[in-house]
């Protein structure tokens, strides 16, 4: 297999093995971070977008992509970061949502009231990833990472992270 014959599908398979260092249950493909892969002359370009503006994992993800794709034989790899269109949880794959839940993090709901600006709006109904109850409440809109909020289940009493709709 020479570099010229490596197709996009193979590259994506390799990218699927790279996890988000802050949410290791998810690959960067599940998260929707990889927006495009292009072959320009002898250079491979991977276009990525950050989840949140200040996400400290982006630099590490960019480096990991370079190392991972170098094992396929690519000598020149360019990582381009784009900001527009802005990342949204709507880009997370169904497979990603399943993996998140299995990992103990409630997956994002589809876009709804939390994305609007109403003050003191009722917290979103989020399903407990442990016992599936909807009897949960939000402890804090901001959690351990920029992309998560902190919830607690009123049935099984477990606190859990919710990957908030964004």
């Amino acid at each position, binding site marked *: 297999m020479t570099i010229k014959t490596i197709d996009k599908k193979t590259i994506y398979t390799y990218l699927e093995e790279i996890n988000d260092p802050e949410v290791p249950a998810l690959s960067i493909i599940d998260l929707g971070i990889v927006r495009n892969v292009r072959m320009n002359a002898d250079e491979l370009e991977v276009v990525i977008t*950050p989840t*949140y*503006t*200040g*996400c*400290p994992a982006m630099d590490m993800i960019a480096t990991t992509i370079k190392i991972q794709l170098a094992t396929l034989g690519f000598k020149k790899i360019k990582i381009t970061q*784009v*900001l*527009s*269109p*802005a*990342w949204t949880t709507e880009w997370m794959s169904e497979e990603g949502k399943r993996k998140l839940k299995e990992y103990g993090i409630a997956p994002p709901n589809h876009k709804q009231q939390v*994305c609007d*600006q*109403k*003050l*003191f709006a009722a917290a979103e109904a989020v399903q407990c990833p442990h016992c599936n109850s909807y009897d949960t409440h939000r*402890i*804090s*809109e*901001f*959690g*351990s990472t*920029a992309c998560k909020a*902190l919830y607690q289940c009123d049935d099984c009493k477990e606190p859990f992270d919710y990957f908030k709709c*964004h």
Partner: protein
Amino acid sequence: MNQVLIDYTLHLADNSLILGQRNAEWCGHGPVLEQDIAITNISLDLIGQARNFYQYAAILIGNDATEDSLAYLRKEAEFKNCLLVEQPKGDWAQTILRQFFFSQYQYLLFQQMQNSKDEQLAAIAEKSLKEVTYHLRWSSEWVIRLGDGTDESHNRILKAIDELWQYTGELFEASSYELQVANNATGVDVSKLKEQWMTKVKEIFSEATLNMPGKTLMQTGGKEGKHTEHLASIFTELQYMQKTYPGCDW
């Protein structure tokens, strides 16, 4: 080299960096754990904005400029942030009120900047706006909670208004580079945001049982590099490593 666009981009970057740094002072000191996490998350978003703007400015400047050299090696008089963001964090009321004033300003600013003729500025605005929406909602709720709370919280936010209102005028007074980028549709005419900003602040103040301040002499100069003494105290931490160990790296 487009000096006006560089100045404007640095102004936007400096605003976000300095407020991000101020808010980060709460790390480990928030009134309760959840709010400690909230204010430092906001800090992270702001520093993320600053990085995007600095990276862009570095490309525009060329030569050896990097996001790090712009944040760590420029001098006080070269910083173009508004005076509001460099003021001390004060108590929780002061931090909250400042965040609310600034988020309301950024919310209106980025809504407009999404349509900038400069693609990169438009993209940064579009991306940041999603997060600023959270900051605005969170800080608005807190202004209401403090204003319409106990005597203690009400008095503290009154004191914060007394302290900070004098720095709000500068947000809407365009500097020479802001005027020029507004004229060629790459930047936003901030003077046009003032009316909407006042209406929004009045709305939240009224719910928080707070009166709008009367006519106040506004302090300005930050956008042109004339700062209060508080910016220097930020630099003693922010730029300490690079000044003590020039060129140090991780």
